[in-house]
């Protein structure tokens, strides 16, 4: 059978706890086995392995037939643990538990490891529905509890123990396994590249610095690094496997810049997205791509006119202060922004202004500057940003208007600007009136609906009145009948409904 070493081969399925005879040292090339041809074999692919195992995922369960986790004859093993076989040590184990193979004999030697591992797996498989606890396991194992614990944790992490076992801790176990499988770069060859460092010891995100250990021994492969990253807390607490000393670890700083270097492209996307989606940060972060919502907001706030953007969205209908900025921003959005190198990244305001003016072109920038000047001379307080943009765009003007007469340019530019301004104003007025129309229509509809409702209510009220009158009549009839003397009162009570209903 071409399956991976089946823990309970079909031949011995009838005797459930009987362990299989020791197999040949089976070296399974990880993740590359073809599915078994013998019968239906259940493919057990836990979520973590799906992302990392190749699509030709390995069928890993033992016996054919519908697999039920409760049946003792069928043991499910995740595909990433297909290397396991009794009596043989695979390279995965050598890599991940090197302390057992570093030449020590006895309690820390390979035989001890094999003994612990095989015994643990056999015990679990004898009762696969039940979760094997460490205490139970180490009480049945002759050896020091430290080593037993390590082997136990390793097996549990790799799903050879307590895989799918029913216990409250199982969900956490799976999560931990998935986390560990995702976070341990050394375990899986196709490990996902993490932009943030996850500590191997406590599975939390490393903060500003972390420690890495590059201890390689003869058994690491080229495509795998036995690299262990632990956060500062784990380093201090010595929360790494005992084979390592503090001297093995090197400190690595994570600077904020390295983590979040906003390129121009991203800033562009961000501004676009903000204008399109406004405050819908989810969409904004989608548009930007690899930035979380928080990052987007933070970045936007850090931009010098970020606040203005937020403001401009709200006050779209009012055109007092944010005229120029709105113009520029819309112009830039409509022009499908091109990438331009920022003039000077250190001074953010300068950078932004240079950026924008480079985008919109020299003419419009100059025009904007002119308009801003004129606006400023009339309206004083509102344009704080435009102030700065004036002074800086003025400075920026010179490199762009070299060789041309400033006056002519300005005149031309101002004329253009005027025209554009008027056009924009007309557009805005148009849209304003449209909006007002729409609102009115809405209100009209609402009024209509209310009227209809009133009609309905009126009708209902009349019906109610009618019913009430009827009821009153009935009551009268009843009282009248009651006052007449009758021989059998019981019969009357039965008969009364009849005459009453006839009259109604």
């Amino acid at each position, binding site marked *: 059978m071409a399956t991976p070493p089946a823990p309970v081969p079909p031949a011995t399925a009838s005797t459930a706890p009987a362990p299989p005879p020791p197999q040949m040292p089976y070296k399974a090339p990880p993740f590359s086995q073809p599915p078994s041809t013998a019968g239906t074999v259940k493919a057990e692919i836990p979520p973590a392995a799906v992302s990392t195992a190749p699509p030709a995922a390995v069928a890993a369960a033992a016996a054919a037939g519908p697999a039920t986790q409760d049946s003792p004859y069928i043991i499910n093993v995740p595909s990433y643990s297909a290397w396991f076989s009794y009596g043989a040590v695979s390279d995965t184990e050598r890599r991940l538990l090197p302390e057992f193979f570093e030449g020590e004999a*006895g309690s820390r030697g390979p035989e001890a490891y094999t003994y612990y591992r095989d015994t643990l797996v056999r015990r679990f498989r004898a009762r696969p529905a039940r979760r094997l606890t*460490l*205490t139970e396991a*180490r*009480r*049945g194992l*002759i050896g020091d*509890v*430290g080593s037993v614990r390590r082997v136990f944790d390793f097996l549990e992490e790799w799903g050879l123990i307590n895989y799918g076992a029913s216990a409250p801790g199982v969900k956490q176990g799976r999560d931990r396994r998935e986390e560990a499988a995702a976070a341990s770069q050394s375990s899986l060859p196709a490990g996902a590249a993490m932009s943030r460092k996850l500590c191997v010891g406590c599975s939390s995100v490393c903060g500003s610095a972390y420690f890495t250990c590059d201890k390689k021994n003869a058994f690491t492969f080229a495509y795998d690094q036995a690299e262990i990253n632990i956060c500062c807390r784990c380093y201090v607490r010595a929360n790494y496997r005992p084979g390592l000393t503090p001297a093995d670890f090197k400190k690595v700083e994570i600077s904020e810049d390295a983590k979040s270097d906003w390129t121009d492209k991203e800033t562009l996307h961000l501004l676009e997205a903000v204008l399109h989606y406004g405050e819908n940060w989810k969409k904004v972060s989608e548009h930007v791509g690899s930035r979380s919502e928080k990052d987007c907001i933070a970045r936007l706030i850090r931009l010098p006119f970020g606040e203005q953007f937020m403001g401009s969205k709200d006050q779209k209908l009012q055109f007092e202060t944010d005229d120029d900025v709105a113009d520029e921003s819309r112009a830039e959005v409509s022009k499908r922004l091109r990438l331009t190198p920022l003039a000077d990244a250190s001074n953010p305001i300068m950078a932004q202004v240079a950026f924008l003016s480079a985008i919109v072109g020299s003419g419009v920038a100059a025009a904007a500057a002119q308009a801003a000047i004129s606006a400023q001379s009339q309206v004083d307080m509102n344009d704080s940003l435009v102030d700065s943009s004036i002074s800086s765009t003025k400075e920026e003007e010179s490199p762009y208007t070299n060789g041309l007469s400033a006056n002519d340019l300005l005149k031309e530019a101002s004329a253009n600007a005027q025209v554009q301004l008027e056009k924009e104003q007309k557009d805005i007025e148009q849209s304003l009136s449209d909006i007002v129309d729409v609102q009115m229509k809405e209100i009209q509809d609402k009024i209509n609906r209310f009227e209809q409702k009133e009609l309905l209510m009126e009708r209902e009220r009349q019906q109610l009145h009618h019913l009430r009158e009827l009821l009153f009549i009935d009551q009268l009839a009843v009282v009248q009948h009651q006052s007449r003397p009758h021989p059998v009162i019981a019969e009357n009570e039965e008969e009364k409904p009849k005459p009453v209903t006839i009259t109604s």
Partner: protein
Amino acid sequence: MKTVSMGAPRSSTVKFRMPTRDNLVPIRVDVEVDGQRYRDAFTWNPRDPDTEIMSFAKRTAKDLKLPTSFVPQMFHSIQGQLADFRSYEGQDMQVKEKIVPLKIDLRVNNTVVRDQFLWDIGNLESDPEEFARTLCDDLNITDPEVGPAIAVSIREQLYEIASQSVSAMREAKMSKKRRAPEFASNSKAMNNAVDMFKYFGSKGSVIRKRKEWYLYAPVVDVISNEKTVVVAKDEAKL
């Protein structure tokens, strides 16, 4: 048959350690909280960091569904025993070939094991774990918890002997007797030691006399549940 004549037993002085291949410490924990009693015995590697003790205690409490009030006491108990062990560590201990009888007399769940055998405490490559494994396999002991109990029991006795050796050495040094320490250390443990000369001498043989067989034969009893309860009660009274 040619007899092998042995010279004087070679002795050397080493730093204190368990006279076994692995330097593992036997730990016994007996904690009582609110009427609930937790007794356990296991082997610990003193090179493991102390953080492991806490996580081990927590995990054990969780696995056995003990209230968390057990954890600090467990932790202190284990840590105390480890500290005792470590306090011996810097000191010298005498190592020479010396055969001592070790005894096993324990009950684990339904199995009672009684045994007596000779052990060379000068053999620093001896392995109580292997001995326990072999014993359980050979005697067909089905309960897997018996093995570790045997191993721990052996280790405890070896630890006892080793620590006595250390204190004897210290006494010898302090009393400033310049004689060879072997004569000075005729303490109780050493008196039990078997004189190998008797066996390897011209008139001896290493084969045990038949009449002594019964002394050294292991006895394994699987007792019924009712009897277990009775025995447990007796033990609790002690």
